[in-house]
């Protein structure tokens, strides 16, 4: 069978940044569960990811998917030291807001809101964008993430000064760098391999 793209002429793509739970559909054929070998299963890391068309598409190259997933988990979930979870999610959301990934921004704005309980501040980032004035700490994280996201990168020592003034230690600053850098990876896959779908209608 010749490989072909899949299109969704009836899909109405979300056209605003939102915290609602969006869907995502792939433009290329994901693997099906009966195609999974042990190598593919190792690539998925979490067995539940076999339910996700995004991860089942990425599972076509299982080695990079496994290494990528483990990089992701340590950058965002290893909170024994460094930046709290909510602030890592702010770096991810600010990066997604800069690149224009409506899907990724929705997921990570939701996480930032759940971990911080700061509904209005999260909404401000989504609505006003990366120049929103929130508070010194979030402003510094958003500025640094957006500067690192630009091509060529605009990240300078003044961003580190701002992060330090906001109270971040060196490990936390590396967490901002890692979180923003990682979402430059994630945004490009999400934006180029499929499209978001509207939130499911409230039941």
């Amino acid at each position, binding site marked *: 069978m010749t490989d072909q793209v899949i299109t969704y002429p009836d899909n109405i793509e979300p056209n605003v940044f939102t915290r609602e739970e969006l869907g995502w559909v792939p433009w290329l054929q994901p693997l099906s569960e009966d195609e999974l070998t042990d190598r593919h299963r190792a690539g998925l890391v979490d067995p539940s990811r076999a339910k996700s068309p995004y991860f089942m598409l*990425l599972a076509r190259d299982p080695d990079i998917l496994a290494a990528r997933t483990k990089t992701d988990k340590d950058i965002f979930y290893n909170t024994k030291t460094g930046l709290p979870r909510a602030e890592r999610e702010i770096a991810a959301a600010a990066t997604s807001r800069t690149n224009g*990934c409506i899907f990724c921004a929705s997921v990570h704005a939701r996480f930032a809101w759940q971990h911080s309980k700061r509904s209005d501040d999260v909404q401000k980032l989504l609505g006003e964008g990366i120049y929103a004035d929130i508070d010194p700490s979030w402003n510094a994280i958003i500025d640094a993430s957006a500067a690192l996201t630009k091509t060529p990168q605009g990240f300078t020592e003044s961003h580190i000064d701002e992060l330090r003034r906001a109270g971040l230690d060196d490990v936390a600053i*590396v967490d901002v760098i890692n979180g*923003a850098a990682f979402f430059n990876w994630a945004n490009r896959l999400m934006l180029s391999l499929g499209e978001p779908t509207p939130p499911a209608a409230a039941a």
Partner: protein
Amino acid sequence: MSNPDIIDELAGIVVGSRLDLIRYDRVEARDNAQKSYLALFDPDDQSDVSVRDRFAIASFVAGLHGDDRVTRHYLAQLDAEKPSKAVSSAIEHEVQQGKASGPYGAYPAGPLTRENVTGPAYRVAAANRDVLGSKLTAALEHAHLLVLHPRDAGPAALQALLDTGWSTTGIVTLSQIVAFLAFQIRVVVGLRVLDRKFAADRLDAAE
């Protein structure tokens, strides 16, 4: 392929330095960023994308990011794969043609339309299309989209890859190469700036 930590090498991080020790606080992320590099550039299976093409794409992507140190690394790896000199020259030429400030691009029509940013269109130069071949030509055009205006991506861009002989699995690998480089280069740039800051701190402390 030898196996020093590639991010340390590209960022110039010295063993035992303050930054090296901080990186060990995120040792899983550090090790798996390295495993990601090896999965993409020293793959077990290159039936869908050759190692030569992987380094050619990476050289172009690094060049678009404007980081000389990283670009030289990937160009050297490309040359070690012994394509004709014309291939690396064509890539260097295409970097100069394709360089732009990103991210730019358009949103789905609606309230975000006012945030649309126009940027230059990019196509591989006619003279380089034969040198690179149709598959690599299509890959560079796709890489430019992902690096500089990822929100302009759409199914037609993937169809263009399929039409030149890319398989679905090959497109997944190509997308991972471009997206991984976008990550790796930003970690390198970020850590390098932090390392400079540490050096400045030491000078301040010595005064």
